[in-house]
């Protein structure tokens, strides 16, 4: 009996203590709560490096690292939305640059950062295309820390050299290369479609290539019609391309396909984002080269940025955090660890590996478009439908049906 009483008392004590801790959280203090979904690996370390720089400049501020784990931030975004609408926002939070800001209703919940851009000179160090991508309703709402690229054609150098092939720069060349490889019983394109989004990813890069950057951007704003014959052209390219992939693609993820076919020299190419580079490095594999997906050179980018909500508890600390994020030092510390390139164009390239160096060069010279499958070009509701249409198309190959469906999805989501 006594034992039971003691344990009940103990539980009550623990509960009380945790309540007290929660209560303390609301008090006046010198804190900075950063909300993100960067928990592990290179991105977690990169975030810590940013914290390190911040702490050096503002040693009295206590940083609270509020992370919510989960792929592409799906869980984190749900938590964040309730905190914003419930009036308990963090000081700063992670946001994909681009149209994702729309869903946070920025004019109601977020702080416009135009003054910060001016005082820090950010509008001079980011490329113009990125600046226009960052603006929503005429204001800046976030400071981008890093850039990833989605439209890379990775190729196996050994296979290309042995067959005396050059990486293709047009679709005609691509299909010639593909034919030559097939004759040698090599799979032209390694493909993994188990997760269901990969066909959508590949199609996005084909769309950019066939329509060009401006018409591609117009697809997501209504300026370009999905009934355009060029969309059908793009679908035909995708169909032809996917016809020559590994037959078991439905059983593999992209990294599975790379492991099974690419690094064993059974396949010659893969279209994927530049996180592939990090995977190659983790496998100690160096026999890969890269090229933009055939067609005009365009940078299909996605970017993480930080935004500050209206009514952030420690506003000054939050603004200082954004300054660190946008600074040369901050971006130079974060990106080599994360495996991405800085959004600024003036960071020393020697800190980065060869792939990232070449990406940094392209970043300053090529037109930039937002990636749709990674949430920068359209809202998630549209993206999921787009993804499903392409997943069906990848198997069934019905161009007319897919185009009609894409058009329907666009009119569902553009008519608001």
């Amino acid at each position, binding site marked *: 009996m006594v034992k039971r009483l003691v344990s009940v008392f103990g539980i009550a004590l623990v509960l009380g203590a945790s309540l007290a801790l929660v209560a303390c959280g609301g008090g006046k203090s010198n804190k900075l709560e950063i909300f993100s979904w960067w928990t592990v690996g290179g991105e977690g370390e990169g975030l810590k490096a940013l914290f390190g720089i911040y702490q050096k400049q503002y040693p009295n501020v206590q940083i609270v690292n509020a992370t919510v784990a989960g792929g592409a931030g799906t869980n984190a975004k749900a938590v964040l939305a309730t905190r914003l609408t419930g009036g308990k926002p963090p000081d700063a939070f992670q946001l994909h640059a681009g149209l994702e800001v729309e869903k946070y209703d920025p004019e109601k919940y977020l702080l416009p950062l135009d003054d910060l851009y001016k005082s820090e000179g950010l509008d001079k160090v980011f490329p113009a295309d990125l600046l226009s991508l960052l603006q929503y309703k005429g204001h800046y709402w976030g400071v981008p820390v890093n850039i990833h690229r989605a439209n890379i054609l990775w190729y196996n150098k050994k296979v290309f050299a042995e067959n005396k092939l050059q990486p293709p720069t047009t679709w005609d060349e691509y299909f010639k290369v593909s034919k030559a490889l097939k004759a040698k019983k090599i799979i032209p394109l390694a493909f993994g479609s188990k997760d269901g989004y990969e066909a959508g990813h590949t199609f996005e890069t084909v769309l950019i290539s066939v329509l060009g950057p401006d018409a591609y951007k117009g697809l997501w704003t209504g300026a370009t019609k999905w009934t355009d014959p060029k969309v059908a052209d793009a679908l035909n390219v995708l169909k032809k391309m996917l016809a020559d992939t590994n037959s078991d693609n439905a059983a593999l993820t992209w990294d599975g396909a790379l492991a099974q076919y690419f690094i064993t020299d059974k396949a010659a190419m893969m279209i994927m984002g530049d996180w592939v580079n990090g995977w190659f490095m983790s496998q100690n594999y160096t026999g890969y080269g890269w090229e933009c997906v055939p067609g005009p050179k365009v940078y299909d980018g996605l970017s993480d940025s930080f935004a500050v909500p209206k009514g952030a508890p420690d506003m000054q600390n939050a603004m200082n955090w954004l300054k660190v994020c946008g600074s040369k030092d901050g971006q130079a510390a974060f990106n080599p660890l994360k495996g991405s390139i800085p959004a600024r164009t003036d960071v020393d390239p020697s800190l980065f590996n060869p792939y990232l160096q070449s990406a940094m060069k392209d970043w300053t010279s090529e037109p930039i478009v937002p990636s749709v499958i990674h949430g920068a070009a359209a809202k*998630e509701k549209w993206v999921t439908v787009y993804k499903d249409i392409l997943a069906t198309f990848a198997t069934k190959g019905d161009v007319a049906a897919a185009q009609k*469906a894409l058009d329907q999805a666009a009119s569902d989501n553009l008519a608001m």
Partner: protein
Amino acid sequence: MKGLTRDRAISVALVAPSLILIAIFVYGFIGFTGFASLTKWDSLEPNFTFVGLHNFARLFATVPTDRFLCDLRNMVTFTVLFLIGSISLGFILAVLLDRHVKGEGIFRNIFLFPMAISYIVTGVIWRWILGPGSPETGALGINLIFEKLGLGFLKWKWFTEPSSVHISATSSFGVFLSHIGLGGLTTSYVGLSLATISVAIAATWQMSGYTMAMYLAALRGIPTEMREAARVDGASEPQIYRRVIVPMIRPVTLSALIVLGHISLKIFDLVVSMTGPGPAFATDVPAFYMWETTFRGNNFAQGAAIAVLLLLFVALLIVPYLVSSTRSEVRR
């Protein structure tokens, strides 16, 4: 029955908290989900504009995506195969073990063990076993075994096979059907999804041990005198099973059907880890679609509509069972 006795007051007071909690957290939320399915809530910010049955109509349309129709086909395919598989396999195993074989305890544990594993693990294991390989890698997993055993003709694409078996629209029966206005029956949505067979195999492997345990308990509950009596009456062994044992364990079969049936309607984790949505949604299930729509697409209204339909399907299975079992309890 007049007035509140002390006992009655206490019992009401004791039951009230759980009643209130269930009313809010089960029925309240079911009601809210039903309400949400009729609204236009398609981003993080709630939007309760009433749109009627629009979300449901979208699910049953083929444009922009026919995913839900594929899901229904897969759900039915999976449920039928999984129920037949686990119940028959479980029954056979139970009958074999009931013969008091040597080392019965060991076998029982071996057969029961898969049930203790999480569906995620089962999914990964069976993805490796049934992963088909390709001409370039050579056969893998079970296809490799078939090849080595000289059974190469059994090699198959397993869960990467996108097609489904259905009535052909060009066959004479198909033409007849479309003549009498039932052309819908000849689409690929009314058929058997071939890729789903692989998922059903994995689920059967996992759950047949459970039905075996149920049947074994039921078989042990049948008094030996019954069998003896049947034998004395000249019944052969198969006849004893058909005429005596199977009818006696019918209640267990019914419980197994209900338990497995609602598992199979709600299946999610096995599909996620084993196959994903599959080629052209050949292995997709409603629960997976619901999760993606809601938490990836932020289309909460559409997700709620799928949830309501799922609840309806499960209710179709469970409610008759509940009604009949309460009735029989009352009779007792």
